[in-house]
């Protein structure tokens, strides 16, 4: 089975959670043995992992005919695309796009990541997708997140193949209900045209059904998973805090969606009772200053630490140094980070409004607004060794069972159903 997949980011160049999920899904599908993936990325760097998927660099796909020779192409984009493939694509240009900002190869540049002209980039991406879809041979289309939905629709119209879209988040999650009409429009259009909608949690699935008015019969829940920790990360030692100060950690974007204020309020309650706990507020975001201010206002700034944005190994060092990981998200489509914390052996407290709460049992779940319960849970893990140990051991066992291969099997099943091959 050949899959044409549209993605936006891919490891090792991670901007948000999408890269990790896309990578996991590709690897999981690859492990099925009979699936070939052609993955379109707007701005690959040439050092992407190509084990699971053949990467098509969208910024090297010609959409206007240029008379260039083989060596020139190899020199220009050889690191990201085979020149033969360039000429093959050039044979499938379907309209004259010279009026657009095309370069010397007839291709369009992408900034990569999430720039301010995101809407233009989304549009360009779908234009290019038309060329790719005419060139490639495939059975099914799989588009990740709203950025790639227009490309998916275009590919479907060109090829007549079924379209699966993967909803990693909706604008309802990002904006606490105040949706951006343009984004909503793109999302809705993608869902309306999709033959199969894969949602990362039942929570998201319900949003898709109720707010985007989709037929429940084509909406399926495909929970995310985690990759086993690399040996290097597994080897990071876990400091023993028995009888010492405990560390409670929040790690993520400090934005409205993540509920940081509930973390501060709960921490305040804990500190009223005991001074033996420190709080680590890692990450950055538009609410960071407000949170520093709030902590100061509550008079707990001496116990509160803001180490800022963390990447790579730092994240795992921070998680391993923590006794409790807290994710009080107001609305979280899935939320892979508690799974990562549990991999590190750190007990997690997550909000019931998170998608991952649907598949996790060995963690504490509270309503994000219930700061009393949140505070109680933090205090309990820090003070009851048996609870800490139980959540640590059983939590790790539990997440070790949540693998991308299982996710791949389920997605393959959904492909087969969509194609009517079963």
């Amino acid at each position, binding site marked *: 089975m050949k899959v044409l997949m549209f993605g936006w980011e891919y490891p090792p160049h991670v901007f948000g959670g999408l890269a990790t999920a896309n990578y996991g899904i590709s690897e999981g599908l690859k492990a099925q043995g009979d699936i070939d993936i052609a993955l379109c990325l707007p701005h690959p760097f040439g050092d992407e992992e190509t084990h699971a998927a053949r990467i098509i660099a969208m910024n090297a796909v010609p959409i206007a005919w240029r008379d260039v020779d083989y060596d020139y192409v190899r020199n220009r984009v050889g690191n990201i695309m085979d020149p033969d493939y360039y000429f093959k694509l050039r044979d499938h240009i379907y309209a004259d796009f010279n009026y657009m900002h095309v370069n010397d190869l007839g291709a369009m540049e992408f900034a990569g990541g999430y720039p301010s002209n995101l809407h233009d980039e989304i549009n360009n991406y779908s234009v290019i997708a038309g060329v790719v879809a005419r060139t490639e041979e495939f059975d099914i289309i799989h588009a990740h997140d709203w950025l790639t939905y227009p490309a998916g629709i275009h590919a479907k119209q060109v090829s007549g193949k079924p379209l699966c879209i993967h909803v990693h988040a909706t604008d309802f999650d990002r904006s606490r209900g105040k949706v951006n009409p343009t984004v909503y429009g793109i999302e809705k259009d993608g869902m309306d045209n999709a033959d199969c909608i894969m949602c990362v949690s039942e929570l998201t699935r319900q949003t898709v059904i109720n707010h985007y008015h989709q037929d429940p019969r084509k909406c399926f829940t495909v929970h995310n998973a985690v990759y086993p920790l690399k040996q290097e990360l597994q080897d990071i030692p876990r400091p023993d805090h028995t009888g010492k100060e405990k560390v409670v950690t929040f790690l993520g974007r400090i934005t409205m969606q993540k509920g940081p204020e509930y973390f501060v309020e709960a921490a305040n*309650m804990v500190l*009223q*009772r005991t001074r033996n706990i420190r709080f680590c507020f890692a990450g950055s975001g538009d609410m960071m200053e407000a949170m520093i201010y709030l902590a100061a206002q509550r008079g707990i700034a001496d116990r509160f630490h803001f180490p800022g944005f963390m990447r790579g190994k730092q994240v795992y060092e921070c998680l391993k140094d923590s006794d409790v990981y807290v994710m009080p998200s107001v609305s979280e489509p899935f939320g892979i980070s508690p799974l990562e914390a549990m991999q590190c052996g750190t007990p997690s407290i997550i909000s019931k409004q998170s998608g991952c709460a649907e598949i996790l*049992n*060995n963690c*504490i*779940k509270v309503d994000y607004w219930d700061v*009393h*319960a949140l*505070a*109680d*849970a933090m*205090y*309990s893990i820090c*003070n*009851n*060794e*048996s*609870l800490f*140990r*139980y*959540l640590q051991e*059983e939590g790790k066992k539990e997440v070790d069972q949540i693998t991308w291969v299982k996710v791949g099997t389920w997605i393959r099943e959904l492909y087969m159903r969509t194609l009517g091959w079963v």
Partner: protein
Amino acid sequence: MKTICLYFEIHQIIHLKRYRFFDIGTDHYYYDDYENERSITDIAERSYMPALNTLQQMIQENGKAFKVAFSLSGTGIEQLEMHAPQVLEKLQELNQTGSVEFLAEPYSHGLSSLANEETFAADVKKQALKIEEYFGKKPTVLRNSSLIYSDDIGAQAAALGFKGMLTEGAKHVLGWKSPHYVYHCALAPSLKLLLRDVELSDDISLRFNNPDWDGYPLFADNYINRIAQLPEEEQVINIFMELSALGIAQPLSSNILDFIKALPACAKEKGITFSTPSEIIAKMKSVDNLNVPDTLSWVDEERDVSCWLGNPMQREAFNKLYSVADRVRIANDPRINQDWDYLQASNNFRFMTTKPSNVGLDRGIYSSPFDAFTNYMNILGDFMSRVNSLYPESIDNDELNALLTTIRNQGDEIERKDKEITRLQAKVEKMQAEEDKLHAKLDKVKEAPKKAPAKKAAPKAKKADA
């Protein structure tokens, strides 16, 4: 001749309320009054009253041919006293028929038998006393909370003077043996054991209303036929369950009460009788001893204590709770004792289980085992600090006990001396009185000569006058 021993457990816990860690030290009331009232009223209405009415009718209709046994936990009695006294009145009425036996069990419905011998003994005695108060008879047969039993517990029960005990006819203990005989405890031959017939009991209490079950629908004649078809030598069929099985676990709409009601008539046809546990224990001889080195109970597939003590959280809570057992007993403070009874209830530990179970578990206000653990530990934290604040923590239990004994002895001595003093005082008073009397006599004697002449003189005077 075969006989059926029908026994029902009546137990409800005092529900704990949502107790946050910041309540520790400020709030010493741990109970959810609303939930207590709601649940017991509901159960009394939907299960206890209809079931007891049916049993009463059965006794009236069948005379001495139908007998039944109950046990009530102390906390259950307290709940009924407060919110559903009609259930206790009904039980007293049943008691007057003479066809009902009441058994002993730990007051708290707790796990003290696994932790502390003295606490267990006190727990059982307290309940036995309460049963005697209500029903006028001291129980002679014991059933431990959730039929928890091991050789050691059997020996303790025998030491407490019980003649018999009920427990589970667990397959892993019985092996090829049948539960339809009377056995005795391996460590205390005088203690006879009645073993629950798991299948026949669960057919009623777990499966009666389950249409997916092969035996559905269950009729009284089929049921009794199955008992009648057992080999001739297997004479005792013990059917034990919670009373709430009739009405709650199996709804009244399943006509379970009609099924129960039809049992005596069907049994009579087949020559099967009903007996109370103490009758069986008095009549039947034990066929063999039963070796139970590992604790068993009537809960879950494993029939062991893993649903209360299976995970480290449960064990920590259990160990913490019983770490103050001696101190609670020594302190003997009324309010502490009350909380102690309520906190011991095994249900509190069951809420923390992480085991998958095919019997649905209602965790009440708790959303997860971790939630249950957190709440319980918060309460326990407050309770323990109260217990410890009664006497300085620096004094260990032995020392404290010694000191308290000294104080008690001194108290006794003072009392004795007080008595002595009063006795002596009385003596002194008596002697005083006697002395006074003597004085008076003496005075009289002294006065007499004076007076006598006077008296004599008077007539003389009269005479003289005359």
